[in-house]
């Protein structure tokens, strides 16, 4: 009898894609209607406008440290547009601005959160999401449990959780895939492989040739997709959502993309990033790619692009103004919502703080 051996495969894998780098669709039929593509493109442009605005405000000291989505717009939007906000849940990391906005999280709350106001964390009662996660990978078990709980209660909602190549080194990622495999929880693990965990390259996270194939070890399906191809991301995510909804369990999607911006506004990528590689990826810009696709169909031009940009800029300005004009939180913002039934000791502290800071007692 021979030894059963399971050897890693290092032959290159081509991520699933539908659009060429210049935006030409392959011979199959488009997975999204033109209207859906235009709507998705608007979220991508909105993101770029927001990121530019927030970065500029941050440089002026009027916005806190935050992480832009630059380079990953198709990856996030392609995934988000596969969801039904009425019944599906997003368990985010912190680099998924357009997904949260599409799901119903108010843009002014997003801005307030990054301006340091706890009220920004407010999730309206009908918006199915968890707060943004800063302790990376900690959200993945939560998404798994949420999906499992929905399934137990007979809901057909599914859960998508976002994280990166770096977070997939945490135990929480592995423990979660394992549990999701066992429970067949309707969860989509959306791993954005953007090449970097701050300054640590993807190669330092794993020796495996892909992140997607890690799923096999947990009895879960893995998929690898070109994350800069809106149509491809949308297609694989839609398929994973339908599969989860049908009770057929979780999927790990590796979306191969590239963080063409900094990790966050406090980061200096010039210390570690390879300029040539960056330029290579900048040429694969996901926004240009989908614009080229629409142009090839004769439904996109400079005028429409300008109109979309202007309308997004207006929307961002409105949200930023609401956030900026929101009065500074009082000391109650330190105490409110910590407990459903607060201990008296904390309530005494809250009163002391209010007295000292002139807040409402």
């Amino acid at each position: 009898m021979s030894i059963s051996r399971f050897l890693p495969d290092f032959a290159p894998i081509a991520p699933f894609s539908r659009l060429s780098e210049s935006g030409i669709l392959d011979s199959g039929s488009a997975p999204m209607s033109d209207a859906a593509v235009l709507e998705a493109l608007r979220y991508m442009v909105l993101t770029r406008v927001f990121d530019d605005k927030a970065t500029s405000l941050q440089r002026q000291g009027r916005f806190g440290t935050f992480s832009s989505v630059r380079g990953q717009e198709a990856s996030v939007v392609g995934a988000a547009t596969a969801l039904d906000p009425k019944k599906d849940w997003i368990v985010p990391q912190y680099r998924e601005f357009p997904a949260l906005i599409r799901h119903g999280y108010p843009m002014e709350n997003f801005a307030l959160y990054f301006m340091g106001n706890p009220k920004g964390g407010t999730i309206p009662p009908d918006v199915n999401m968890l707060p943004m996660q800063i302790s990376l990978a900690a959200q993945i078990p939560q998404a798994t449990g949420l999906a499992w709980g929905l399934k137990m209660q007979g809901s057909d909602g599914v859960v998508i959780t976002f994280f990166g190549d770096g977070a997939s080194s945490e135990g929480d990622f592995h423990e979660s895939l394992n549990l999701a495999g066992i429970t067949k929880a309707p969860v989509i693990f959306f791993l954005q492989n953007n090449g970097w965990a701050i300054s640590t390259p993807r190669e330092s996270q794993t020796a495996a040739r892909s992140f997607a194939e890690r799923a096999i070890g947990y009895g879960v399906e893995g998929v690898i997709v070109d994350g800069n191809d809106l149509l491809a991301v949308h297609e694989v995510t839609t398929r994973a959502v339908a599969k989860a909804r049908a009770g057929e369990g979780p999927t790990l999607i590796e979306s191969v993309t590239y963080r063409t911006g900094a990790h966050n506004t406090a980061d200096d990528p010039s210390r570690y990033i390879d300029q040539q590689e960056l330029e290579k990826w900048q040429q694969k810009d996901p926004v240009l790619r989908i614009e080229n696709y629409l142009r090839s169909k004769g439904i996109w031009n400079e005028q429409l692009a300008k109109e979309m940009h202007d309308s997004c800029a207006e929307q961002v300005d409105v949200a930023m103004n609401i956030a900026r004009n929101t009065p500074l939180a009082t000391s109650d913002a330190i105490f409110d919502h910590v407990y459903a039934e607060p201990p008296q000791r904390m309530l005494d502290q809250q009163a002391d703080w209010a007295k000292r800071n002139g807040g409402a007692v």
Partner: protein
Amino acid sequence: MSEKTMIEAIRECLTQEMQVDNRVVVIGEDVGVLGGVFRATDGLQAKFGKERVVDMPLAEGVIVGSGIGLAISGLRPVIELQFLGFGHQAFHQIGQQVARLRYRSQGRHSLPLVIRSPFGGGVRTPELHSDAFEAFYTHTPGLKVVAPATAYDAKGLLAEAMASDDPVLFLEPLKGYRLTKDEVPDERYRVPLGKLRVAQVGTDVTLIAWSAAVNVAQRAADELAAQGISVEVLDLRSLNPLDIPGIKESVSKTGRVAILQEAPLTGGFGSELVATIQQECFYDLQCPMIRISAPDTPYPLGGVEDLYIPDVDRIVAEVGALARTSA
């Protein structure tokens, strides 16, 4: 009403609460067919099915982390951490996630979940099973910490914890599971969080304890009574919320305070009590307070644990000396 051990009281509580609320699910390692390594969940899977009593993969992080998700989905999970010593494997989920999710979502997501875990020593466990790590969790705002000493309280406080919309760490004394036996009503009832129990009335010294140490404190108090020293034993029941008025009431009467804990000295919950009492009751105190604790060393192997945990003789000596300290 009949005498029940603490483990029976806990099991009865889980059974009754699962019966009346089908949102309650129990998850943990070996909680199903085996009924838990201490049998707290014995028979629950047979009664309520594999969907509601789930044997989890051996991974504390995802046990607690997925419990958060279950709670958000509308269920009321009761999580068994097999030993608090293994809680460090889930510490990031408990400390940063469970305790803060309500605050981070500005009240959108309450977390009605209970983490039950045996802790403390005295039963010759293998290494790393017996630490009294409660102070890590009392230093975690957003998390309530409960530590019953009697079977009656175990049932009533667990029911209260399960009814709470706040997350509760429910600490169960390893040593008290079967040794502790007292009158427990057959019907459902609740004991409120944040109200201490005067385990023994006294006038000379206030001896504060929680969980398994309460029993040791009472035995020491009996011996001290024979020496003519009247000790009031307070059973805190819950560490957060803390019954500060109840402590003040006793200290204003006795003026002398000893705090008993199984945990190491430095940074233990006893230190918090000392600080609180000196602030709240300074002018009632007749002499410095004392802490009777384990030393500042890791929990040892079982062969020497009796030398590690404060025992009756040591308490009698130290509290006796305290009672004789002149004002």
